[in-house]
């Protein structure tokens, strides 16, 4: 294209400093129900022309009393509420909560159980990242990417369904282990699913990574530098995109993450594009972890062999009186797992960052027995995306109003976890 013909176009645009085009500040409400807001959150942006000058965020529309609900049920019943925190990768939530309670109990689950948990966690992590990238891309108009990635997620959901019978809200983990072993042929299915996911990742890389339109929309928008990010309490892909290699799996290893070989992808600039790239690479790393775990998984029991914690096998429950009594002792009202008084904080790396569970066991009046409690006194979840949304005004200030959408998409706000 001739450069001379391009120059008059420049004059066509007015700069905001020209006095005759001075605009008034405008307040624009995005949300609570907005096509580009996956989840219910209200962003009130103050605009100068198209420039975001200030933003105010209101959350709490999905506050459904996670903690109060947990306090009213037994240790194992509370797992169903953890599912619904981050409903994109529920198993990681289950694992985090159960590990916190196991810390209080002072038990460690056998190696096979740990491998199963790692496998399930990584499957969920891939599903989480696929959903996040898919939704963010769709909001920028890349519908194909959305459809491809949803297809990839279906393969992973099928794996989870094979394991526990549910697709989304899985409740696949119990305090003290898993309710069941991996089904027959699961690892072979996993290998096929990984292959499919890798094909999809390759296709989406081809569609997005070097796509001029996508690149221009996301490069340099929603910037959060490392220092600020740490001050805001960022963790997970959003922090790693800023260049800090903090990952709970490496810094405070749990399960079997220290026995497999994988790397932490890090970005440099902390903008939307880096967050996208970090997520894409993390999926690849998760696939590597999955492959290694599937090869190395040992034989043996999948949960602790302690009758005070784990339910007996169904054939024992129905087959002999000891099994039946054991089942009753764990299920009936007023019985169940007894957790010693104390407090524990357990952090796991969720799709979004550090997911911490702070669990307190404290004797409840009338239900106390030997200094143990049958219900959580408090089950607090440290949600990773709460901190991102708190920092959102800082990230979108100075950007155009259209950049709010990719920024909001790339921080991956999950309503259930944000509002609990």
């Amino acid at each position: 294209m001739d450069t001379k013909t391009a120059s008059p176009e420049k004059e066509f645009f007015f700069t905001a400093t020209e006095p005759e085009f001075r605009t008034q500040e405008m307040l624009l409400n995005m949300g609570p129900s907005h096509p580009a807001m996956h989840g219910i959150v209200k962003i009130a942006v103050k605009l100068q022309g198209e420039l975001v000058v200030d933003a105010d965020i209101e959350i709490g529309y999905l506050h459904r009393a996670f903690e109060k609900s947990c306090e009213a049920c037994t240790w194992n019943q509370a797992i169903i509420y953890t599912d619904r925190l981050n409903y994109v990768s529920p198993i990681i939530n289950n694992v985090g909560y159960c590990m916190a309670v196991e810390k209080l109990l002072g038990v460690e689950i056998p190696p096979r159980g740990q491998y199963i948990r790692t496998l399930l966690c990584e499957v969920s992590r891939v599903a989480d990242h696929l959903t996040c990238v898919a939704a963010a891309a769709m909001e920028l108009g890349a519908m194909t990417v959305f459809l491809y990635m949803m297809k990839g997620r279906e393969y992973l959901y099928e794996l989870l369904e094979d394991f526990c019978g549910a697709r989304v809200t899985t409740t696949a983990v119990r305090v003290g282990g898993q309710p069941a072993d991996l089904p027959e042929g699961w690892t072979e299915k996993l290998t096929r699913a990984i292959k499919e996911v890798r094909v999809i990742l390759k296709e989406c890389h081809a569609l997005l990574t070097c796509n001029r339109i996508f690149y221009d929309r996301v490069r340099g928008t929603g910037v959060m530098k490392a220092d600020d990010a740490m001050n805001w309490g960022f963790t997970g892909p959003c922090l790693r995109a800023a260049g800090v290699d903090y990952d709970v799996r490496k810094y405070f290893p749990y399960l079997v993450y220290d026995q497999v070989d994988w790397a932490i992808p890090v970005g440099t600039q902390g903008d939307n594009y880096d967050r996208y790239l970090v997520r894409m690479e993390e999926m690849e790393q998760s696939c590597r972890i999955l492959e290694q775990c599937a090869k190395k998984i040992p034989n043996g029991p999948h949960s602790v062999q302690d009758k005070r914690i784990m339910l007996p096998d169904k054939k024992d429950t129905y087959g002999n009186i000891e099994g039946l009594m054991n089942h009753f002792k764990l299920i009936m009202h007023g019985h169940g797992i007894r957790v010693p008084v104390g407090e524990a904080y357990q952090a796991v790396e969720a799709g979004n960052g550090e997911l911490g569970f702070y669990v307190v066991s404290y004797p409840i009046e009338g239900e106390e027995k030997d200094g143990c409690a049958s219900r959580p006194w408090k089950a607090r979840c440290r949600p990773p995306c709460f901190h991102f949304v708190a920092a959102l005004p800082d990230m979108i200030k100075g950007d155009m109003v259209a950049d709010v959408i990719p920024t909001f998409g790339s921080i991956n706000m999950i309503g259930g976890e944000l509002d609990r």
Partner: protein
Amino acid sequence: MIPSRSPFDPQNPLEGRVITTPFDKVLGWARKYSLFVYPFVTACCGMEYMSVSSAHYDLDRFGAAFPRFSPRQSDVLWVVGTVSHKLAPLVRRVYDQMTDPKWVIAFGACASCGGPYDNYATMQGIDTVLPVDIYIAGCPPRPEAVLDGVVKLQKMIQESKQVWK
């Protein structure tokens, strides 16, 4: 529905080209296959809503996948997920802004009855503030259950009396 075309007969121009049917039925038929939806997605059920509306389960087959994010242009309000007391006035407002005829689908246990959340923050079913036509059970419902719900709604639309003036 339309029989094979017979050769044109000038003496009897309508022969083979016209079918007679009650107006209600044809209007219901048109309405049930062009449902514009307003997805009011709040929580976990949204994951299954995404699955249903993308290629694997393909809600488009039923003519009910086209999302309109303006309530004024939509026919069906999908309340997908938990509705808290803070959110209730907003759902009601979206419903009030929709033009008649309009239908409401309560997607999942929380929207139907509160689901596992029986506490200070959560509304016990959206039918306490707005009329619901179809309840889809499940936490979250499987995509097959959602499709079943859509088919049931279409049947209901077809069979109901059509208001059109």
